[in-house]
């Protein structure tokens, strides 16, 4: 009997693993729907279901295991050519994948996999796939599966990266033959890797290695190296080659010369795949175009990362105090201390970077869910929809992934349900039959901007006006504001999907309050709707300039500063009574604003004999911010600021400086906006 802690650990590992497998599975299934002929995808799905089956069986989730097993059977048949993938079948397969999801979430909640009814679906699956029911089969598939899983790595093996394909071409040019070497390293588990590497190294003396599986140059941390395959080319014959890998503690050596002409066939994309072995070139391309973001990774509890982040923050704080301390010392001690703080500085900045990066994940983690959502919704609604995802590589904080999921899902539902027209309506309007939803992400000046847009009908301002009983002179912009009010909807009917307009207000509140972000909507009637979500970067250490106004300190991100200058109050001109003052700058002039009056417009601007100007730049526009004093540059750790302290939203955070003073971090975009 396993100790309880161990079992818990095992369950935890299982859940993490299965979550990853499921995500890959969903993605692969959707791709398969678009390319039903893609054998590579079929192989991949087969492997994924196979892993799911084995893992869940291992830990005793028999229903989950059985369901995964049946899916595996289906893909086994598709793979062998015994079964053709039809839409009807694919629908059932997708439902089965959904059930697996359901089971896994139940297991996560501690409910187990027993209460999910999957029998009827199994029957359906078996019928469509032409698989005999459980009681009828007994003997046959086991063996086939065994053979299949032995063959599985081979498929993986022949997927070549562009670099590997280049190696193949070079070898072809040199007229070399291609070989496949398979072997099993023996000895201590930990030493299998160096053992395998020794074989590779010996081989490289006389042959040109194209690829190794598993990757021996950058091995995955959890790789066990029980079986290693090397694809290589050489001008030597088998016997001469055999001497190269005559190494102790290596067994199961198989050297196979790949058939003549095998690689030539791979050059032509139109050539049919060789039996069981897909052409290398074609597969390499297919993989490249799919452009997946997959990397080997370790999962870390976000709380641990938060803790680490806090600690790095403390360290930055300490470092700043050291620098201050050094300033007050006699010269020889000072030199010594400065040298030390210099290296401390280098190390802390590297640490900041490293920790920050561990917190970041590509937004594709979130985006990957949407193709399935759009597919299902568009089928339900009978609309043709194409989804475009842009900026998938944009890195966002881990915590945002979860927080953004619901709001984005909501916006997509809205677009499909309310925004996009039916095919008939679209054709009547002269629009393309297929509607388009685009989701994009990018980092812009220290913020993350996520946009959801569609080319549907946009907002119906007349309807909003009637519904809101707004004044006839209300502008489109004002009317747009109404859609953020709780419970506001112009739809008379309630649809299954988006309900009665409970949505945008929830989305907006959530983004404002939870994420301290903003939601903007702009619409051109008839042409579509664009919703923009702007989020502050949650965790930041910003290199900032500290300035003073009266007794308070403010931090301005260095990246937003063009230059600092001294300003004589006499050089300021006010062209119009209500307009901001202007300052001659770079041959023209620039709007100048006193930070003091931004903070509190009721305060009369003090006429100091000299002011300091900080020229801010935001999206190509300049504003000169006038302050009492420009202090020094510092790295500041930004923490969220309480709403109460930030009535004008001038600050994007607050920070404790090295000497314990508090500085407010200015939101430069907001400063520029308020000035103009």
């Amino acid at each position, binding site marked *: 009997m396993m100790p309880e802690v161990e079992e818990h650990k095992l369950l935890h590992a299982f859940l993490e693993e299965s979550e990853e497998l499921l995500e890959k599975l969903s993605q692969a299934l959707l791709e398969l729907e678009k390319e039903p002929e893609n054998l590579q995808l079929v192989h991949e799905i087969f492997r994924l279901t196979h892993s799911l089956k084995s893992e869940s069986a291992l830990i005793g989730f028999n229903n989950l295991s059985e369901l995964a097993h049946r899916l595996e059977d289906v893909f086994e048949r598709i793979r062998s050519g015994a079964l053709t993938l039809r839409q009807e079948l694919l629908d059932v397969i997708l439902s089965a994948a959904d059930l697996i999801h359901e089971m896994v979430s139940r297991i996560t909640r501690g409910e187990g996999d027993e209460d999910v009814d999957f029998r009827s679906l199994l029957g359906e699956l078996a019928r469509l796939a032409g698989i005999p029911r459980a009681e009828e089969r007994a003997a046959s598939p086991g063996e086939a599966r065994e053979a299949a899983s032995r063959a599985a790595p081979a498929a993986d093996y022949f997927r070549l990266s562009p670099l590997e394909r280049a190696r193949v071409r070079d070898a072809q040019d040199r007229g070399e033959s291609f070989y496949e070497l398979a072997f099993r390293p023996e*000895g*201590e588990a*930990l*030493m299998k*890797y*160096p053992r395998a*590497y*020794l074989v590779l*190294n010996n081989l490289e003396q006389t042959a040109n290695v194209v690829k190794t599986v598993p990757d021996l140059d950058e091995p995955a941390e959890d790789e066990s190296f029980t079986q290693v395959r090397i694809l290589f080319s050489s001008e030597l014959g088998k016997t001469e080659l055999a*001497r190269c890998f*005559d*190494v*102790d*503690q290596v067994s199961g050596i198989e050297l196979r010369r790949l058939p003549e002409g095998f690689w030539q066939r791979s050059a032509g994309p139109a050539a049919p795949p060789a039996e069981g072995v897909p052409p290398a070139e074609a597969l390499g391309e297919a993989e490249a175009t799919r452009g997946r973001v997959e990397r080997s990774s370790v999962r870390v509890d976000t709380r641990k990362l938060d803790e680490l982040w806090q600690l790095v923050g403390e360290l930055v704080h300490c470092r700043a105090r050291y620098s201050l301390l050094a300033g007050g010392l006699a010269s020889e001690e000072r030199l010594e201390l400065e040298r030390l703080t210099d290296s401390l500085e280098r190390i802390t900045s590297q640490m900041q970077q490293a920790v920050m990066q561990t917190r970041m994940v590509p937004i594709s983690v979130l985006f990957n869910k949407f193709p399935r959502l759009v597919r299902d919704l568009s089928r339900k609604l009978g609309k043709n929809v194409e989804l475009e995802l842009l900026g998938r590589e944009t890195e966002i904080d881990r915590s945002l992934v979860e927080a953004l999921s619901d709001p984005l899902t909501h916006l997509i539902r809205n677009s499909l349900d309310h925004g996009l027209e039916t095919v008939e309506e679209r054709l009547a309007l002269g629009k393309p039959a297929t509607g388009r939803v685009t989701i994009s992400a990018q980092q812009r000046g220290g913020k993350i901007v996520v946009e959801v847009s569609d080319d549907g009908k946009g907002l119906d301002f007349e309807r909003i006006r009637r519904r809101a009983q707004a004044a006839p002179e209300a502008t489109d912009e004002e009317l747009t504001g109404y859609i953020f009010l709780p419970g506001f909807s112009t739809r008379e009917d309630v649809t299954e999907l988006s309900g009665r307009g409970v949505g945008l207000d929830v989305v907006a509140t959530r983004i404002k309050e939870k994420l301290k972000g903003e939601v903007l909507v702009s619409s051109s009637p008839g042409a579509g709707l664009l919703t923009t979500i702007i989020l502050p970067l949650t965790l930041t250490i910003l290199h900032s300039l500290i300035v003073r106004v009266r007794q308070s300190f403010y931090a301005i991100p260095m990246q937003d500063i063009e230059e600092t200058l001294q300003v004589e109050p006499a050089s300021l001109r006010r062209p119009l009574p209500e307009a901001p003052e202007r300052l001659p700058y770079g041959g023209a002039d620039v709007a100048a604003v006193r930070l003091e009056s931004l903070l509190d417009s009721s305060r009369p601007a003090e006429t100091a004999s000299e002011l300091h100007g900080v020229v801010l730049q935001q999206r190509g526009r300049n504003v000169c911010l006038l302050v009492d004093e420009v202090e020094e540059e510092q790295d500041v750790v930004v923490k969220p600021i309480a709403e109460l302290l930030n009535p004008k939203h001038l600050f994007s955070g607050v920070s404790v400086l090295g000497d314990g003073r508090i500085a407010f971090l200015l939101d430069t975009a907001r400063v520029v906006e308020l000035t103009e």
Partner: protein
Amino acid sequence: MAKRILIADDLSFIRLVQREALSSGGYQIVGEASTGREAVEKYLALKPDLLVLDITMPEMNGLAAMNRILQADPGARIIICSAIGQQSLIVEAIKAGARDFIVKPFKPERLLRAIGKALEK
């Protein structure tokens, strides 16, 4: 004629085990070194057929010693002897030109087999 072997390890116990094993296999031990520096000096002076080299040694580690030796004698046959858990160092050593490696604690037969294979080439 018996092949001439040099052994380098900072632990005299390990050297003892190696000596026993090698003599029983019919090899001649031409010298012993207990630091990396000593290993380089003795290798260059004695020109053995093969060197069994520990990775962790005082005064220049095994990897550095190996690099020096291979610089002077690119054909040097070197077998690395290491503790478990030094996989990446071993891979480094293989990249640099080590012919094989054995892991402590090792059985005498294993040492002899590795040496036998390395001397064949």
